[in-house]
């Protein structure tokens, strides 16, 4: 029998601690597949955030640092400067990257650090129990926006791709999602592009994955992708905002 699909080599055997239906697992797997395909397992170094994916280091069979909340791009900068031949990626959620770590991601991007930043945007703080995130939608009810996010007092959802794409240094800035099998394959391709660019020494790449949080959204896992499609995608438009190397055309 020919193996059509199985666990990638770069994933550990450890079962995920994530909730049923959580998108983190699929995105982890896609990253691991990219690491396998590019044959960079021995020289890949991940930086784990604070948030639900704080234990990301447990699920990849590669070297890892566990960074303070929001600081993964700074930690990755330190690692990459010391080990320029390594492939360094960060993995952060919306609270981590778009709130407490806004300065770190913007400046790592602006310095053009030759790293790959993966941004999981599910519009909510997961690990702390479902608080309002900088990417929460207007009117979205969370533990700390019980009447719905009010733009007058809490502002509007932050669009990280659009902000980062205004900078000159980043080479690849894209927003993808895994709400259906076709988009899932596009996400895989975006991650492959981003890691390939780093491998070729081209510079900073940013992949935002619009994702679900069934538990804190109060949705069944099978309904969460539908909710994402109907509510998040109109606000967080999919697409590539910057591709200076033309990687998507090649």
């Amino acid at each position, binding site marked *: *029998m*020919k*193996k*059509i*699909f*199985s*666990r990638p080599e770069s*994933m550990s055997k450890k*079962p*995920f601690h*994530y*909730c*049923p*239906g*959580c*998108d*983190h*697992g*699929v995105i982890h*797997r896609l990253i691991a597949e990219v690491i396998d395909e590019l044959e960079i397992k021995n020289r890949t170094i991940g930086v784990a955030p604070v948030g639900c994916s704080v234990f990301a280091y447990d699920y990849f069979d590669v070297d890892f640092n566990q960074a303070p909340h929001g600081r993964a791009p700074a930690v990755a900068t330190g690692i990459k400067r010391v080990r320029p031949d390594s492939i360094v990626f960060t993995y952060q959620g919306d609270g981590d990257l778009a709130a407490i770590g806004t300065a770190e991601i913007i400046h790592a991007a602006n310095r053009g650090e030759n790293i790959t930043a993966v941004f999981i945007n599910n519009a909510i703080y997961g690990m702390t129990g479902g608080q309002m995130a900088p990417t929460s939608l207007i009117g979205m009810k969370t533990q700390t926006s019980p009447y719905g996010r009010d733009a007058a007092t809490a502002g509007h959802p932050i669009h990280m791709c659009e902000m980062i794409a205004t900078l000159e240094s980043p080479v690849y800035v894209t927003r993808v999602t895994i709400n*259906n*099998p076709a988009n*899932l*394959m596009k996400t895989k391709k975006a991650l492959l592009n981003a890691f390939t660019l780093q491998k070729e020494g081209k510079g900073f790449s940013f992949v935002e994955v619009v994702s679900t949080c*069934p538990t804190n959204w109060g949705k*069944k*896992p*099978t309904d969460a*992708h539908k909710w994402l499609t109907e509510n998040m995608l109109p606000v967080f438009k999919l697409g590539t905002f910057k591709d200076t190397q033309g990687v998507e055309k090649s």
Partner: protein
Amino acid sequence: MSKWVINENLCKGCGICIARCPLKILAFADHLTSKGVHPAAMTDEAKCTSCAICARSCPDVAIEIYKEEK
């Protein structure tokens, strides 16, 4: 001929694979796993085209797909 294998220790019964199967040949099993969930199960392996959409959609990487070599 395809072979569909699930690691029930990893399955959390989220049902995403069942919802996404184009041929609708996956369903929740009647039994419970040690985690206390009804795992996904294959109902008609003969129909499976090994498209692997279920496996690629599984958040817990619980499914493996094999295919008879021609």
